[in-house]
């Protein structure tokens, strides 16, 4: 048969998978060959028939709801629960402490302790929100809005979107790589969310204006050791590292900006990326 060699490739042609040059040659041939044109037409009809017949099953609304409830909100919900429990524990510990030392402490000390526990609960809430943002982003089909490994592409993308400027560290000769960035909102305040990779781990860096953050974040944290955060890891007094989160996290205030570095990478990696940011700012 004259057209045998063409017909052997007809399906690949109709799937649009021949190399560009061959596609063009095939187009020209099919236009001039009645036999191949007829074959192409029936195969297209067959493809369409299979496509229609193949779209056969639709999930029930009940199943969709079940999946949404059981899968999507799980990480966030368990997070919230963890932090509600942690916050409750903080309050209980503070209350127990208050009762034990009531007799020996002055009324002024008690006021001071209450303030500390309020600060801790508020700080825990911020950490929980940050962890939620990190998890929700990684679960998203499109984790980043600006995809680039080049800091000179990612940084200008935020121009006009956030009310402040920041510096991104040079990553040459480090194990970190920039994946991209997106907008983030904390307490209705816009900020920058950057995603970095280190050995297949994703690390989020959030940057917000310090004045938009709850004052508890920058409060002196002398009693923070007993709760979820320990104090003073970094160069400045406001640096905090979380110990009870299922992630490693570090946060600090620098140049009027509040930084959070969070991820499931080791605390050494989190600290490494935090140091790069501290020296870049």
């Amino acid at each position, binding site marked *: *048969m004259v057209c*045998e060699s063409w*017909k*052997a490739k007809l*399906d*690949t042609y109709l*799937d649009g*998978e021949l190399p560009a040059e061959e596609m063009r040659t095939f187009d020209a041939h099919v236009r001039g060959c009645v036999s191949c044109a007829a*074959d192409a*037409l*029936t*195969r297209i*009809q*067959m*493809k369409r*028939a*299979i*496509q*229609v*017949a*193949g*779209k*056969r*099953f*639709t*999930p029930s609304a009940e*199943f*969709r709801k*079940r*999946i*949404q409830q*059981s*899968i*999507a909100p*799980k*990480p966030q919900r368990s997070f919230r629960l963890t932090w509600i429990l942690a916050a409750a524990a903080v309050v209980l510990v503070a209350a127990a402490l208050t009762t034990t030392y009531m007799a020996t402490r002055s009324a002024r000390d008690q006021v001071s302790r209450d303030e500390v526990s309020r600060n801790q609960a508020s700080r825990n809430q911020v950490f929980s929100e940050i962890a939620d943002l990190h998890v929700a982003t*990684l*679960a998203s*089909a499109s*984790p*980043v809005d600006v*995809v680039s490994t080049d800091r000179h592409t990612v940084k200008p993308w935020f121009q006009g979107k956030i009310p402040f400027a920041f510096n991104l560290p040079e990553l040459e000769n480090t194990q970190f790589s920039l*994946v*991209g960035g997106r907008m983030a909102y904390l307490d209705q305040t816009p900020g920058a969310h950057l*995603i970095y*990779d280190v050995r*297949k*781990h*994703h690390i989020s860096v959030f940057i917000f204006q310090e004045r938009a953050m709850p004052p508890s974040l920058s409060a002196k944290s002398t009693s923070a050791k007993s709760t979820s955060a320990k104090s003073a890891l970094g160069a400045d007094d406001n640096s905090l590292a979380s110990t009870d989160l299922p992630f490693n996290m570090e946060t600090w205030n620098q140049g009027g900006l509040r930084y959070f570095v969070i991820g*499931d990478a080791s605390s050494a990696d989190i600290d490494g990326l935090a140091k790069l940011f501290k020296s870049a700012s």
Partner: protein
Amino acid sequence: MPHFERLYNFACWLTQDRLEAEDLVQETYAKALKGFSSFQPGTNFRAWIYKILRNTFLTSRTGLKATATVPLDPEDEEEISPSVSETPESILLQRSDGQFLQQAMEQLPVAYREVLLLCEVEEMSYQEIAATLAIPIGTVMSRLSRARKALRDDLRVRLQKR
């Protein structure tokens, strides 16, 4: 939930049982969330999640049963003859309705069914199919060709019986 409806449709075609398909989709999302760190940003997300679903199916009881009787890619060694049929496909199509075609698709071995669905229903490129099924592109092409031929042959036999 990205690709939810399509994943469910694909799962139904693989398992041929709605309840099993629901379990399969649920497990797929759970695994995808848990193993999200293994997803490389910039690579094909759709191929990644379909691959999870398919691998989960293959290790299920139904999947093991469905694949136990099918030889692994005998097509790789053989030359594929051009799929020129004795009965014109137009006649096959005219005489068969959607349900008839669905029955013929159900009867295809799972390896043929999945490659046909990924190509025709999901409209994946050969490269995406290769990534999803973890096979070379050449095998995608030969398997597709065999799947199409098997479907036509099955339709022809069914029409003769009717």
